[in-house]
């Protein structure tokens, strides 16, 4: 004992960095949750794999949200200034936790559903399908662990105040997503699509990451700082606003970010990846990735590069305008709802960039507000797609929701509200969100961008309204014993009624046990309507998100 004491004393007197565990606790909850969930997936018990793992994931996400709220009033930099815990990070953390919970709920299937699915499946024998389903469940633990670590990456990304951590967060976000995209292990075309989607995302995501990394390196080269505030300081004090190396770095960084947030012309991967990935994962990519990417956009451009706003502002404004047009026009001809929503998410990213461009506290608030609204609207839409994918053999084609108004009003209303909201119709949250963004754009001197936003909304009506028409104004496809989803699908725009007569089976037995999915859809739809009429809670939420930036 006495022999050891000098060493112990020396160790005790070593200066060790102060670690603010409280501020790190949401991240710890996510990463710890990931490990626990991974372990929980190991036992062979079907019940644990089927219900225990999602439940634990939900607990981890709930803990994250709770710990985030616990930090609510805090505003500090931790880990020697690499992470910034402020209202922006906390609000986005909440949105990420919500997006994660939505994903878990959509991916969570009950046993009854499984057996219905197995009974209704196509191709191989009943026994083979059952084996396949059980094999799929073996991945449950891994999938949820990947989901949680991806969310941890996103939380890191939106709090990053340092280009090294920014990149770290981005990779932690992306790598699990590549795997998740490719995770559909059912046989046949869906698996191929899923693998294709994962590979495509991996390759394009890597190109995006590499571009961003190069850009960050050049910015470091020009300014000699890795922290955002250091970069901003260096630009201000050395007058770097015309510096070629810096501008080149900024350009590459913009390109990298645009890859991640699917901003045109770097959006081409989005429809393919969205379509191929399993729908709950698509939901996660559509809502959570957008939150994280735009959060990073806001912090990086409005803190680190605020001094050279006059250089990147017009560039990003142009990109936003191109994105709005390309996304909306691209969505016009889609026959798959997932592809349509993919293009629509491209357009929505364009709308939200308007809030980044203006580089003002108002812009930050408007963007975060729209992110929250966007989360509600897309949650409703994707939940309905998931439900219909399981009930019909029609996949995510527009036919799957045809006649929904008469058949399943509880699914029809959320989807209708979501479409109206995405189109920006009053009495939905989308209207208020767009109002706020246009307000920010006009206040920031980008009136023309505000006009582009409404022009985009006009184009978008041409693909959102036909979905509503399909739900309410067309008859449900006739019930046939075998699904005919392999044939050509009707275009969304204009519709093609001669194809409405043929159609797939509506598997009534699969309807049972869809409670969770319907609940998510209803929550999304109700939130879309509620925040359209009483938006004040959301305004209160985003009230101080721009406060910590200190540069406005």
């Amino acid at each position, binding site marked *: 004992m006495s022999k050891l004491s000098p060493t112990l004393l020396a160790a005790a007197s070593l200066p060790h960095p102060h670690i603010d565990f409280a501020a790190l606790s949401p991240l710890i909850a996510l990463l710890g949750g990931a490990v626990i969930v991974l372990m929980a997936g190991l036992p062979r018990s079907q019940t644990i794999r089927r219900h225990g793992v999602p439940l634990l994931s939900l607990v981890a996400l709930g803990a994250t949200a709770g710990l985030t709220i616990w930090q609510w009033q805090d505003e500090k930099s931790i880990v020697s200034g690499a992470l910034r815990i402020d209202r922006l990070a906390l609000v986005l953390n909440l949105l990420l936790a919500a997006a994660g919970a939505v994903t878990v709920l959509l991916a969570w299937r009950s046993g009854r559903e499984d057996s219905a699915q197995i009974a209704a499946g196509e191709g191989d024998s009943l026994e083979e399908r059952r084996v396949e389903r059980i094999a799929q469940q073996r991945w449950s633990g891994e999938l949820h662990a990947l989901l949680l670590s991806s969310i941890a990456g996103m939380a890191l990304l939106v709090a990053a105040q340092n280009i090294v951590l920014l990149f770290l967060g981005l990779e932690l976000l992306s790598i699990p997503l590549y795997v998740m995209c490719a995770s559909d292990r059912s046989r046949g075309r869906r698996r191929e699509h899923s693998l294709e989607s994962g590979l495509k995302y991996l390759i394009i995501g890597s190109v995006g990451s590499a571009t961003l990394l190069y850009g960050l390196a050049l910015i470091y080269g020009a300014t000699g700082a890795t922290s955002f505030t250091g970069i901003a300081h260096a630009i201000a004090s050395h007058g770097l606003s015309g510096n070629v190396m810096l501008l080149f770095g900024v350009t590459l960084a913009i390109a990298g970010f645009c890859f991640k947030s699917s901003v045109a012309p770097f959006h081409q991967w989005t429809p393919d990846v969205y379509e191929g990935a399993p729908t709950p994962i698509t939901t996660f990519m559509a809502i959570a990735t957008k939150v994280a990417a735009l959060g990073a956009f806001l912090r990086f451009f409005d803190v680190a590069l605020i001094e050279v706003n006059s250089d990147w502002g017009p560039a990003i404004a142009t990109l936003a305008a191109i994105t709005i047009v390309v996304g909306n026009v691209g969505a016009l001809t889609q026959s798959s709802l997932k592809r349509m929503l993919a293009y629509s998410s491209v357009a929505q990213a364009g709308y939200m960039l308007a809030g980044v461009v203006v580089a003002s506290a108002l812009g930050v*608030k408007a963007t975060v507000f729209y992110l929250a609204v966007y989360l509600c609207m897309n949650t409703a839409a994707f939940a309905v797609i998931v439900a219909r994918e399981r009930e019909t053999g029609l996949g995510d084609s527009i036919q799957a929701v045809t006649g929904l108004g008469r058949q399943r009003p509880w699914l029809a209303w959320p989807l209708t509200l979501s479409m109206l909201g995405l189109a920006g119709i*009053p009495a939905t949250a989308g*209207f208020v969100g767009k109002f706020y963004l*246009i307000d920010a754009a006009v206040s920031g001197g980008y009136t023309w961008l*505000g006009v582009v936003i*409404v022009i985009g909304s006009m184009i978008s009506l041409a693909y959102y309204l036909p979905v509503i*028409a399909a739900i309410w*104004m067309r008859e449900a496809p006739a019930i046939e014993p075998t699904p005919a989803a392999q044939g050509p699908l009707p275009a969304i725009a*204009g*519709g093609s009624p001669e194809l409405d007569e043929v159609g797939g089976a509506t598997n009534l037995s699969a309807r049972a046990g869809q409670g969770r999915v319907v609940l998510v859809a209803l929550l999304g739809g109700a939130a879309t309507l509620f925040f359209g009429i009483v938006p004040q809670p959301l305004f209160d939420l985003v009230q101080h998100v721009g406060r910590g930036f200190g540069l406005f």
Partner: protein
Amino acid sequence: MPALSILIWVPAACGLLGALLSGVPRSASGLRRTLPATFALIGSLAAFGLAIGYIVEYKTGSQASTVTQTLHHVTNVTWIASLGIHYKLGIDGLNVLLIGMSTLVFATAILASVARSGEPLERPGLYYLFLMIAESAVLGAFLAQDLALFVAFFDLMLIPFYFLTGMWGRGERRQRIGATIKLVIYTLVGSLLMLAAAIATGVLAAQQHGTHLNFALSALQTLRLSKGSQEWIFIFFAAAFLVKMPAFPLHGWMPDGYRAMPIEVLMIFSGVLSKVGAYGFLAIVLPLFPQASVHFQMLMLLIALASILYGSAIAFRQTDARLIAGYSSIAQLGFITLGIFSLQQQGAEGALLQMVNHGLVVAPLLFIVLLLSRRTGGSEDIRDMGGVAFRAPVLATIFLIVALATLAMPGSANFVGEFLILLGVFKAKLAIAIIGFAGVVAASVYALRLFIRSMHNRKGAKVDSHDISWRDGIVLVPLVAAILFLALYPQPALKRSERSTSAAVAEAQVFDAKTIASVQGSGWTSYKPIADQKTGPSR
């Protein structure tokens, strides 16, 4: 709860209640069918009653104590503080008559839906829900005293019609859905441009005057925008309103939309929704953008004139009775635009009266088209009609009253309206007024043509004439009674609107007087009484 909120939300609440209750008793199918209709009737009649109450109680010009207090029953609650949007409602001389007309047309359209013969309505719960939401949105648009709130209601009121036309419309499903989407996109394109323009109005006004963002109309009126901003914003607003009316070059959605809509819904769409556009010019555009209104006065007058001539000319040639009503609406709305952009008090007052008149006239006209089509084996083509009057004297009488009102027979309120409009235009632009007179003549041609071809002439091949049932009578009688009442007593209506209309054009007149003064004597289109010319511009 403030009174005007009750007026606005009672219809929607009744619609919702009916829809929800009809969903509950799954077994009693009779109840499911009648409950929504009953609730819709209660809601629309309650709204009508309230509106009549407001009209009766409205203090006319001479009785009101002060000139400044023009807004009555104001409800003012902050809706979205961060955006400076208020839930502000109020009654003034511009909207008091219009809400009366709207609630009456809505109530009769619902009566018409209830009285509808033939196959019962599918999904009545949803049908009445959408109708009642539309009524709430329309009343909200009329009563809103906040620019953003107005825009929200203006956009919202179109959405129920998308469902109503698409789900209960006429014709083959594919065509119907196409027409519906066209209708909604066409009209929402204008509305969305207006959204951008409205936000810009608020933001730029706050920036140019260094105040907080505030969309209340009263606040925006004091924060005048620079002329350059006014001009592009004016164009966006005008696009929205002209599409909704519809006016001549922007009416592309009208024929398909009219054909696809069920006629009960069309009564509302044609009678009420088009007026919201015209109301927008009076209540929003003229007070907020007076310089731009003067700047674009000639353009708007020419559009109005083109609408009158084009609408009348096509109405001559149309054989579809429904489209005759449609094209005549284009012409009538052209008159209204003409009156508003004369920028004279008489013109605006006439336009307002004409808005009420047109709503009261076109709704029974369309319902009569429905009655006629029932007597001609479902055809709405006037070539298939003829000789209906012989066995249907009551229908013929009612139709004659409506037709004479449409053509602005002296003695009808429409005559007073058109007279005032032309008086206003005469003061402002002489040449335009002279061409505008042609429209008055044209109206008598197409209205009488429709009447004669359907009621008189030789009996059509499939015509099976019989008089109207009491159920049809219930729909027609209130509208015709309102027409006759306004014909006999236009003065109460004019009294209620005169102060607000003169306030609406007052700002524009200031700038107009300046322009007139600067070009005194040089413009051959401007006319001034000799007495005025001696003393210079009156203001």
